[in-house]
C-alpha cells in the first residue's frame, strides 16, 4: 500500500482525538470556544438544568456582537429585548468565569474579527463557536467551525465535541492576482464554480500562489465564506505572513514560548504531495471583481460579464433562477454595471477589518458619496475602530458623507437598527445575499470593499478598475 502523506487537516484532527471508536463519531478536543450573546443562552440553560459545571472557562472567550447597536450609549441595549439578552449573557459569563470582552473594553467586536486580532486564534488549534462563520479562523491554520446550540452546550460541559470526521478537499487557485482582485473575489469565484453545496461534507485547504500572495486579513475573508460553499470549514497552511501577523499580539506567545510554538506550527504545514479526498482548481488568470446578482452567494458574476441567460441553466434550476431574479428585480442576460443602488454597507466578519477600511478609504479620499446613497461603515471591532480613527480613515469616510459607526454585526444580519428598507438595493461587503437577510425585502449585492466604495461614489454597481 502506498503511504499517504497527511495534510494539515489530518494532523490537527488526529492530534485532538480524545476518544475514537469504530462506528462512533469522533470525540474531538476543542482548544478555544468562542461565545456570543445570541446562541449561548439555551446552552447555559442546559448546564443549569443538569447541574453540570462549565468545563474549561479558561479556554473560552465571550463577546457581544450580533444584537448590539452601532449607535452611541449602547452598553445597556436600546430595546427591552436586546437589554435582556445582553444582561443574561453578562451574568452567564460572570457566573461561569468566562472572560467577557464587553462593550467599551477596547476589545469588543465581531467574534470572528477579534479572535485573530487578539492573537487568540493560532495555527494547529481547534476552534468552535455557535456561529456558522467560525470558519474564518481557519485562515491562520486552524480547524474552526460553527456548531448548533445543543453542541455549544456539549463544549461547555466537556471541552469536547462529538463529530463525524469530514473528508478533505484541496482548493487550488491557479494564476496571479489581477488589479483589485481581493480575497472576496477569489472566494466568490470558487462558490460560483462549485455551488453552495459543492463543499458539503468537506474541510477545504486553500492553496496556490495567489493565496501565498494574499495578506493574512484577505485570507480571513476567504476562509470566512467556506461555509457558503457548503464546507464544514476551510483553512490555509500557515507561513511567514501568518507568523508575522501573529507576532506581538496580546495573547500570542512571547519569548521562548514563541520559538516553541513556531516549531510546532511549522510542523503542521501540508507537504506539497499531501493526500486529499478530493480537489478542485479555480482559474483566476482572467478574473475580474465579482458581484452577486441573486439570492445565494453562488449566483454571482465577474463585473465585466452578463447575468447568464435562463437557457444556460439546467431545466431543474430555471425556476430557482427566475425566483432569484424576480426578487432582485433583474433580468437574465443583463449587465450589472450601472444598476443604481440605494444603500452601501462596509463591515461584517467578512470585510470589517482594518485593511478593508483602508481599501475603501483610499478610493473615497477627497470624494463625495453619491447623494442618493446612504453609506454605512461599521468597523469589525473596537480595535479596528480605534485604528481607523488614528489613521484618519474615519475622517475620510465622514468627509465623503458616509456614516462611521460603532462595531458589531450590524446590517450583515440586521438584528439592530441598521436595517436596509424593503425594496432598497444595497452594495454590501457581507457574506450572505439571502432574501431578507439585510432587512425584509432588501436586495443585497455581495462584493469587495473596493467595489462597494466605487458604488458609494457613483451611486451604481460600478467596475472599480475604471474609477
Amino acid at each position, binding site marked *: 500500500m502506498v503511504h499517504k502523506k497527511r495534510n494539515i487537516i489530518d494532523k490537527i484532527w488526529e*492530534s485532538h482525538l*480524545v476518544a475514537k471508536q469504530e462506528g462512533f463519531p469522533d*470525540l474531538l478536543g476543542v*482548544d478555544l470556544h468562542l461565545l456570543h450573546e445570541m446562541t449561548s443562552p439555551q446552552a447555559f440553560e442546559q448546564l443549569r438544568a443538569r447541574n453540570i459545571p462549565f468545563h474549561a472557562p479558561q479556554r473560552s472567550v465571550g463577546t457581544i456582537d450580533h444584537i448590539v447597536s452601532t449607535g452611541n450609549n449602547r452598553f445597556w441595549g436600546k430595546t427591552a429585548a436586546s437589554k435582556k439578552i445582553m444582561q443574561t449573557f453578562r451574568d452567564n459569563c460572570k457566573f461561569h468565569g468566562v472572560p467577557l470582552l464587553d462593550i467599551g473594553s477596547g476589545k469588543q467586536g465581531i467574534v470572528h474579527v477579534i479572535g485573530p486580532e487578539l492573537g487568540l486564534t493560532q495555527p494547529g488549534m481547534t476552534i468552535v463557536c455557535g456561529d456558522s462563520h467560525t470558519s474564518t479562523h481557519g485562515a491562520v491554520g486552524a480547524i474552526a467551525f460553527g456548531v448548533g446550540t445543543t453542541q455549544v452546550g456539549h463544549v461547555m*460541559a*466537556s471541552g*469536547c465535541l462529538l463529530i463525524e470526521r469530514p473528508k478533505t478537499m484541496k482548493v487550488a487557485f491557479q494564476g496571479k492576482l489581477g488589479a483589485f482582485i481581493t480575497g472576496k473575489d477569489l472566494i466568490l469565484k470558487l462558490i460560483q464554480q462549485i455551488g453552495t453545496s459543492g463543499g458539503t461534507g468537506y474541510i477545504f485547504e486553500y492553496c496556490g500562489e495567489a493565496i501565498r500572495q494574499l495578506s493574512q486579513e484577505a485570507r480571513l475573508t476567504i476562509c470566512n465564506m467556506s461555509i457558503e460553499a457548503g464546507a464544514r470549514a476551510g483553512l490555509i497552511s500557515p507561513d511567514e505572513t501568518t507568523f508575522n501577523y501573529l507576532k506581538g499580539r496580546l495573547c500570542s506567545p512571547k519569548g521562548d514560548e514563541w520559538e516553541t510554538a513556531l516549531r510546532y506550527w511549522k510542523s503542521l504545514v501540508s507537504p506539497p504531495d499531501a493526500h486529499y479526498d478530493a480537489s478542485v482548481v479555480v482559474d483566476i488568470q482572467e478574473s475580474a471583481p465579482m458581484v452577486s446578482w441573486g439570492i445565494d452567494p453562488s449566483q454571482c458574476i465577474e463585473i465585466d460579464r452578463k447575468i447568464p441567460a435562463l437557457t444556460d441553466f439546467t431545466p431543474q434550476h430555471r425556476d430557482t433562477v427566475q425566483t432569484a431574479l424576480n426578487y432582485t428585480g433583474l433580468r437574465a442576460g443583463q449587465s450589472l454595471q450601472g444598476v443604481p443602488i440605494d444603500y452601501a454597507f462596509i463591515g461584517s466578519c467578512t470585510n470589517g477589518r482594518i485593511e478593508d477600511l483602508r481599501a475603501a478609504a483610499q478610493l473615497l479620499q477627497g470624494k463625495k458619496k453619491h447623494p442618493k446613497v446612504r453609506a454605512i461603515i461599521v468597523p469589525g471591532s473596537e480595535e479596528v475602530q480605534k485604528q481607523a480613527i488614528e489613521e484618519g480613515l474615519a475622517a475620510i469616510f465622514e468627509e465623503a458623507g458616509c456614516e462611521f459607526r460603532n462595531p458589531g454585526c450590524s446590517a450583515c444580519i440586521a438584528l439592530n437598527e441598521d436595517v436596509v428598507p424593503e425594496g432598497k438595493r444595497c452594495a454590501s461587503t457581507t457574506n450572505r445575499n439571502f432574501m431578507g437577510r439585510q432587512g425584509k425585502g432588501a436586495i443585497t449585492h455581495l462584493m469587495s470593499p473596493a467595489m462597494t466604495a466605487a458604488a458609494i461614489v457613483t451611486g451604481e454597481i460600478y467596475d472599480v478598475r475604471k474609477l
Partner: protein
Amino acid sequence: MEKFKNITDACVGIPKSHIDTDVIIPAARTKTIGQSGLGDGLFYNVRTSKHPDFLALEQFPKRKILVAQENFGCGSSREHAVWALKDWGFRVLIAPSFATIFYNNALKNGLLPLTISAELVEEILGEAHREDYRIEVLLEEQQLLVPNHSPIRFDLKPYYKQCLLEGMSDLDYIRSKMEDIKAYDQRRKEHLFFDTSLLVKN
C-alpha cells in the same frame, strides 16, 4: 432520552416525496421555548387544510410508524421538525431516502429513520390504510418485518444503535468519557500557547 422499544404497529402513509421541514412544521408554529407541545404544529398547514395526501394523520392519530417517499426532511436544519414528529407520537420513519441533516437530527432525538427500497415503500403505502397491515421493527436484530416479505435488514451506525437501545444522549456519551477527557486535557496543554487571563488583566 427514553430507551427505544421494539414496535409493532400499523402505518400512517403520506404518498409524497421531498417533504420539507417547513411542511413538517411551519416556521410560525416553532416559536416556543421548549420541545414539547410541538406536535400540535405537525404538518399544520397541510393537515388543517385537509390536503388529500395528508389525511391519514388525522385518521390514525395513534400510529407510531410514518411512511413517505424519497428525500423526506429536506429544507432547513431546524430540529423542530424532529421534535414535532416525536411529540405527535411517531417513533419510526420509513422512506427510500432522507435529507442528511434531518436523518442525523432524528437519530439524536430517539426517532428511528429507516431507508428501504422505493418499490417496498410503494407497496406499504398501498396497504397503509389497513389496521391489520402491521409492521414490526426489531432494533437489536436490525430487522424490519413487513407482511408477505422475508425479514429485511436495515443499516444503522453502531453509535446510534447503542444510543437508542440504552436511551443515551450525545451528552450522556460524552460524559461517560470524562476520564479520557481529563487525560487529553493534560496532554494537550503542551501545545496550547494562549492565555485568556491576559484579556481581563489588560
